[in-house]
């Protein structure tokens, strides 16, 4: 099992292009759990994730890992604890699956040591977890969107970090692949205790797969906690401006948001 870490943000203010997006967020990431950041478009959920994953330097406030400011930890050392899969990584032309997954070993390698047995094992394990071992020698260009995303996650896994940040890992994927990816991430968390923090677009999938929800509204943390406590019709109205009914998901038992638009609401009479 992965060790426990205390990862916390205090009064973080951050943004980009001279625009403040995150307006004073304080939070503690539950260790060895799956956390999902939800919120409307432009509320800053992606910016918050990037700030936590040290892609954006906060204008003020502190982000600490086990009591040390993440800006003060040597980057390569930090990269062995904290991994990140951004929303749109760049695929080098003509790279094979095994090579791309192998790139995840960078923080573990020094120029002198070169490629070690440990690296080979880590790559093999990451590919096994993501079920892409048979694709090892394929070119990335030949893969479907779902397979490609599994390869990217495998690259992040090969980094063997205790904490993994993912920015919308299921966007642009068919529902089948969305479920597949989220199931694999859940396996990862349950089997290895990897702390996962991700941004998801779909509130119902968030409610189903998260242990902990961070609900963001206009750059501020509006609510957080277990999905069953946090996801209510009031919260959905507050952060999305959407009228809805929340029922218990008959499949998972988690909250299920049923939006109420202006049409097709006849069932309300029942």
């Amino acid at each position, binding site marked *: 099992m992965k060790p426990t870490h205390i990862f916390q943000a205090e009064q973080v203010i951050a943004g980009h292009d001279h625009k403040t997006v995150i307006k004073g967020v304080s939070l503690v990431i539950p260790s060895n759990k799956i956390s999902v950041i939800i919120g409307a478009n432009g509320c800053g959920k992606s910016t918050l994730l990037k700030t936590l994953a040290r892609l954006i330097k906060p204008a003020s406030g502190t982000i600490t890992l086990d009591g040390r400011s993440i800006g003060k930890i040597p980057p390569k050392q930090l990269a062995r604890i904290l991994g990140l899969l951004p929303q749109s990584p760049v695929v*080098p032309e003509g790279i094979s699956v095994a090579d791309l997954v192998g790139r995840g070993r960078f*923080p573990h390698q020094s120029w002198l040591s070169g490629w070690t047995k440990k690296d080979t094992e880590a790559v093999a394990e990451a590919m096994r977890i993501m079920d892409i071992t048979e694709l090892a*020698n394929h070119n990335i260009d030949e893969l479907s969107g779902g397979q490609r995303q599994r390869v990217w996650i495998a690259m992040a896994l090969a980094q063997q970090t205790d904490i993994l940040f993912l920015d919308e890992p299921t966007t642009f994927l068919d529902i089948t692949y969305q479920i597949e990816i989220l199931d694999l991430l859940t396996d990862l968390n349950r089997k290895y205790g990897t702390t996962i923090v991700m941004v998801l677009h779909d509130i119902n999938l968030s409610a189903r797969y998260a242990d902990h929800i961070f609900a963001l509204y206009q750059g501020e943390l509006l609510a957080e906690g277990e999905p069953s406590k946090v996801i209510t019709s009031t919260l959905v109205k507050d952060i999305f401006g959407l009228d809805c009914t929340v029922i218990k998901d008959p499949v998972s038992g988690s909250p299920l948001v049923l939006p109420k638009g202006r049409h097709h609401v006849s069932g309300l009479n029942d």
Partner: protein
Amino acid sequence: MSSNSVSGKRELRPHVPRNFTRVIVICLVLLGLCAAASLVLGSRLVGIHELLDGLFRQDVDSYGANVVRKRISRTVFSLMCGGALGVSGALMQSVTRNPIADPSILGVNTGASLFVVCGIAFLNISTANEYIWLALAGAAITAVFVFGVGSVGRGGATPIKLVLAGAATTAALSSLVTAIMIPRSYVMDQFRFWQVGSVGSASWSAIATFVPFLIIGVLIAIITAPALNALALGDEVATGQGVRTGTLRLIAALAGVLLCGAATALAGPIGFIGLLSTHVIRLILGPDLRFVIPMSAISGAIILTISDILGRLLGSPGELEVGVVTAFIGAPILIILAMKSKVRSL
């Protein structure tokens, strides 16, 4: 090395391309053949006896042996210069994450030659030692300027914007070079080759000046290669893997400018070598920069030397400057690369 890739049971060794040993042997053999051809071929073809006399017997004073001796420094220089330009191209492509970045396309070597021409015209500079520093300053300033102009506006330094900025800068700077040279016949006579690029006039002392820059530049390139691999996955992935992207870009760009500036200082602006050498290698070995960078040095050396030989044969009894030859080979390749949609971004 295992070769059962079809069964999918190949050992997971993502660190070495399967055909690497074969490729390196072929490249080294080609390199040797090129060097030999460069000694033998030219407006005067020398025989095997003359070649051996020229190479190994200092006491023989035949015309053929002397021709060979003159061609030795030229060959050594063209190999080194091609290597420097190849690595420089690989570095600039990585730093800009732009597959068509090349010192000549980005205007960097035109900037270097402008500074050298200015030095010759206004400061009475005439030794390779002094050229090098001027060329480096010119290369660095032009690189910063082109990246600066290319980064303005939405999306940062996109391939298209960088190429446009480079083309515009090249046009402006070459017209300045011409404007400075035309009224000064002494500059024009002595340094005609600056406008096109030539490896023919390299002296041993110029080569000695070049060596430290070549070594430092190539060493930095090889050392930064693993981090540049991370950068190839995007700035965000690279940061996530513990790369200080700003520092890395600066160091790698400096090495690129160092290599290209030093080569330009001695040979004049030779275009397209950085582009040709890296793309040939990428095609054969794939995108791993730990292999692409050193192998681009070898392929760059081969391509530049072949171009120089071609120039000597085609221009006989005189010679065609190598810069003209590489432009003729490189321009169509650039067009093909630009048309291939896949390489619009690395």
